[in-house]
């Protein structure tokens, strides 16, 4: 921890970066911290409780400004940063990425290639919670699954915390904010809730890196992260992805090839 704090203080003092996004102790658990001077670096922490995906902030222009900034990134944040890079949302010149590796050593990534090599060491696995719920869902018939998700979605009140917490939901105008025409009814109701969540899921296909931020943010406890996680898992063998790593040839639903072997696309 001391190494991280000292390095962050030095980076800010030297003017190498103008901002470091990290974690501090919160009232319930660690929370995001924005260090703009070396004094505040003393509040920085970085441990296994720090799982909030800080990549959600790196595309917010009003927050990060025009100068170079840094982010302390656990593995989930690193995965999102790589995906954002592939989607041309980040540049190496502007972002310095710090992490603390499994040996407790401070690591600095100047290039996305370095992050990619580091992330490749970590296999994407289901946690206990994911395994428990997903294996239950996988054992259901199609009708049972629909019933399960309609039941879960009925609790949604459209606070859009799932969208706000997702690093890959960086659109300045979301589909639910388009009102000419109004694609999705803004009020909560069983079918319009499902419309929203299907839309969200389809926009995430082949992009989601299963950080779980959406499910974690949901105030009414809908395990929505499992929809996009499951799609990531299912897509990987079909499209040659490695789960949790960005698709180098483009995202499944937003890229196409002239020589695609499927007929329907031509």
């Amino acid at each position, binding site marked *: 921890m001391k190494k991280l704090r000292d390095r962050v203080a030095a980076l800010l003092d030297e003017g190498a970066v103008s901002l470091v996004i990290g974690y501090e102790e919160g*009232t319930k658990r660690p929370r*995001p911290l924005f260090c703009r001077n070396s004094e505040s670096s003393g509040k920085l922490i970085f441990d296994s409780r720090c799982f909030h995906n800080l990549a959600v902030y790196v595309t917010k222009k009003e927050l990060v400004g025009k100068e170079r900034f840094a982010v302390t990134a656990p593995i989930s944040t690193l995965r999102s940063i790589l995906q954002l890079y592939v989607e041309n949302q980040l540049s190496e010149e502007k972002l310095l990425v710090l992490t603390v590796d499994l040996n407790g050593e401070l690591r600095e990534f100047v290039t996305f290639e370095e992050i990619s090599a580091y992330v490749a060491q970590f296999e994407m696995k289901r946690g206990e919670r994911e395994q428990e719920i997903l294996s239950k869902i996988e054992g259901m018939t199609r009708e049972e699954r629909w019933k399960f998700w309609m039941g879960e979605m009925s609790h949604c*009140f459209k*606070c859009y915390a799932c969208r706000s917490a997702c690093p890959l939901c960086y659109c300045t105008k979301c589909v639910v904010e388009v009102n000419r025409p109004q694609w999705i*009814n803004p*009020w909560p109701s069983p079918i319009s809730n499902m419309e929203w969540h299907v839309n969200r899921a389809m926009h995430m296909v082949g992009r989601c890196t299963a950080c779980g931020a959406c499910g974690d943010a949901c105030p009414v406890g809908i395990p929505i992260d499992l929809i996009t996680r499951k799609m990531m898992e299912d897509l990987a063998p079909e499209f040659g992805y490695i789960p949790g790593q960005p698709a180098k040839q483009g995202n499944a639903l937003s890229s196409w090839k002239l020589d695609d072997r499927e007929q329907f696309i031509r």
Partner: protein
Amino acid sequence: METKYISQGGMAQWFESIIASGKRVYAPVNSRGQVDFKLVKNLSEVADDYIQTTQSIKASVYPKAEVLFTYEKDHGKVNLSDFDPETIPETVLWKVHPCDAAGFKPLSAIFNWDSADKLHNAHLVKTSVISFSCAKADQSCFCTSVNGSPGNTAGSDIQLTVLPDGGAIAEILTPKGEALVALLPPVFEAERGDKKEQYLVDLPARFSLEEVNAKLNKAFNSTVWKEQSERCIGCGACAFVCPTCACFDIQEDVHGSKGRRIRCWDACGFALFTLHTSGHNPREHQSQRWRQRILHKFSYMPDRLSVVGCTGCGRCSRACPVDMNILEHITSIAKQ
């Protein structure tokens, strides 16, 4: 006001007679790992051992989506069918916490500040509130800092304070409360001299409202809004779980020549909330929206409606994905 004693068995019988009277009863139910208000038929469905429901009881008097009126075009004529207050059933809210019951006053102050809101008022008229005083609190609770208390009876028709024998002190506070007692009068026994305060959680006040209000009067251009809101991700979780947040949107649901006009929840934390047709947004940044949230509750409402827009229930702090803790933020403003 009258105080009575009701035994545990008496409470169960009374609950059954409320159900038997045909009224809808909403009570906290534990399901999917969360406790929230749901329609119940049996006392056994009602949750025990929790601090707070995830969502407030607000939806019972201000539904998430409600039809204001329906219309149909018919050969150049428009047939309008207005909201009918008679369609609202008699409703009993069981086991409401005092911070939720106290939320009815600020909510009604907003809905009736210029003209009387027919829908909200129709719900209120048909709603009776049986609150349970609080024997427990957590670190997000701060009702005592915002004119409330674990035994506050404001907004309740009857308040029960549960005793160690499972029975309760019953404070019958309003004619609506008396009407509920009249469903089964014999279970309400003479009071036994139990001291209510003895069974309430001790929750020291954390800040003074006057101090906060005075600071906020000069804080519009303060840097505090930007500092506090940097980590806010701009979702509506805080507003939607809040017992007093009343921002709404008006929407049309049109199908051919028929349609409905719907009022649904909205949140001042959303960027879209203040976006003008021209493209201009007077609250362009999250810091401005956070300022609005705090000033509205702790400055504008006390000044204009003579009621504070926060009941200290702590739900926003519990629901926030990034730990925007309102108690922490307000306390820091009070100390500035």
